[in-house]
């Protein structure tokens, strides 16, 4: 074997390396043609704006006059003298914690109920998934109506069973829980992902656990949860990122419940009631595109980038790990 290889290498060294080189160059060119548009798009619509955001965050810029370098002024203002950014950050943090928890637990709960159905799995799954496709602006409007304190069906229901309904979107203490309910209603996507993972858990493991005398609760904790933990982690990180960019539902709910004439037209009702729905992205939008404090908005964006990059990094690492497992196994 070795001798034939050697003889071939000796026989025509220049010719074979030339074609090999030519092949490699051609292959590189092919790859370039395939990914060039995406690369260009990535650079223009992600690479450039990421760097430019950092630059703008050190300037005062109103879109009309040239950006004026102000050092760390925007950041200092953000952390010291502007109270509403604190409110916005608090609201978003609240959502990151509560909304993530409720969304994942609810999706896991509904998915496990569906996974145990003997028949009609497809139908129930469809009914639970459909709401997640509803346009967020329309779904929010529907919920503002459903949870209307005076004539909304939800309070009418609650009243019928003797519970005092509350003011929901008109009460600063209830507006975020109401938004959380809206998100849970639309969590069908995550439910499908978890359902697929649940149905993938090997049945033998349940049988083995049952033989060992584990009841349904212990089987759930010791068999189900460990088997689907990568998917649960995906759900947690995914929900956290979703909560970090929570915008449409918050701005529409706040304005619509307060009776704003035109969501796109004024800032008076944004965050209503009492700034309880003022999320971080909403305040970034108002600062940048209503008040035209573009530099300040950029500084807010940098902070948002740092936080969400952290979450994204966890997810990407997880993804890479599962990929290696797939390739290895």
């Amino acid at each position, binding site marked *: 074997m070795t001798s034939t290889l050697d003889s071939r290498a000796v026989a025509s060294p220049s010719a074979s390396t030339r074609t090999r080189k030519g092949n490699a160059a051609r292959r590189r060119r092919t*790859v370039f043609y395939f990914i060039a548009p995406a690369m260009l798009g*990535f650079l223009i619509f992600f690479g450039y704006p990421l760097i430019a955001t950092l630059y703008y965050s050190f300037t005062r810029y109103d*879109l009309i006059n040239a950006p004026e370098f102000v050092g760390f002024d925007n950041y200092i203002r953000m952390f010291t003298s502007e109270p509403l950014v604190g409110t916005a950050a608090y609201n978003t943090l609240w959502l990151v914690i509560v909304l993530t928890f409720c969304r994942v637990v609810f999706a896991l709960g509904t998915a496990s*109920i569906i996974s145990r159905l003997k028949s009609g799995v497809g139908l129930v799954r469809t009914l639970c998934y459909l709401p997640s496709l509803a346009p967020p602006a*329309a779904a929010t409007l529907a919920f503002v109506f459903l949870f209307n304190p005076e004539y909304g069906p939800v309070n009418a229901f609650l009243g019928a069973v003797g519970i005092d309904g509350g003011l929901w979107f008109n009460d600063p203490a209830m507006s975020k829980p109401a938004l959380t309910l809206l998100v849970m209603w639309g969590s069908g996507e995550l439910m499908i992902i978890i359902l697929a993972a649940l149905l993938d858990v090997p049945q033998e493991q349940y049988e083995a656990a049952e033989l060992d005398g584990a009841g349904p609760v212990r089987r759930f904790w010791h068999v189900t949860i460990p088997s689907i933990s990568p998917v649960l982690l995906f759900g947690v990180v995914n929900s956290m990122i979703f909560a970090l960019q929570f915008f449409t539902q918050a701005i529409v709910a706040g304005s619509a419940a307060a009776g704003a004439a*035109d969501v*796109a037209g004024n800032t008076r009702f944004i965050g209503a009631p009492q700034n309880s729905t003022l999320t971080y992205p909403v305040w970034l939008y108002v600062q940048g595109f209503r008040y035209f404090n573009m530099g300040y908005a950029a500084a807010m*964006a940098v902070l948002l980038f740092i936080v969400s990059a952290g979450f*994204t990094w966890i997810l990407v690492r997880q993804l890479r790990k599962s990929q290696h497992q797939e390739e290895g196994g």
Partner: protein
Amino acid sequence: MTTLAEPRHTAPASEPPKVRVRRQWDKKLYWIATHSLGIAMGVIFMLPILFVFLTAVMSSDQALSSNFWPKEWHFENFIEVFEKAPLLQYFGNSMLYSSLATIGALVSAIPAAYALSKLKFRGQNLFFMLTVAAMMLPPQVTVVPLYDLWVRLGFTGTLIPLIVPYFFFDAFSIFLLRQFFLTIPKDYLEAAKIDGCNEFQAMIKVLIPMAKPGIAATAMFCFLFTWNDYFGPLLYTGETRDSWPLSLAIASFRGMHHVEWNLTMAATALIMLPVIVLFVFAQKSFVKGVTFTGVKG
């Protein structure tokens, strides 16, 4: 005890009819008991949509009372919303945005996903991870310079800033298509190449026909995402009513017509309708696409 262990359809005929009826009832009750949670869940999830449609056909007075069922059915409400607001124009804008963006996303993402799944090159892993990162980053992070860019180009107030990026780079479409392409065996492409196809021809003639379900799912997600998009249109067309898509128009509709909740819900129903229709026709693709994003890393 022995009769219980026997398959149900071989129940002895000599059994008195009363017992048989009771057993049928037991079976039904058992079915209801095991399925009640599932049924309840399905109903609860559907209730909000049902209420939207029921309120949409009420009179305006009745929509302000806490009645669930319409006293009279005012189907003309659906026509009235078209008279109150230029919904057809908004619908047209939405269609324009969603369909062009979807075409753009497919044109740009199919080759990129092909390269990521079927070719080998240096930096492939990095490119994939960058795509995932771009997919996860909140749009607000990059929005200040992008807005600035589109203002300088003079395209704000139109749908162009929303559509054009899709023709270059749509992270989610690239990601999803890659996941689908990975499931297609390389052998088919190798065979095509042995038959004299180059990579481009292999993609067009072999991969795309085989990946049709995946491409359809990606197209639907892209269409749906842009149809539902609110932040982008608010940013670029917020000041220009003529360019509004439905998502933006609906949020302002209620304000323009004060407390006419029946009309607002009629408009809400109208914007949900295309999504529901799309879903009914392509349910399987949706479900497959969603599981692909989460499970098959």
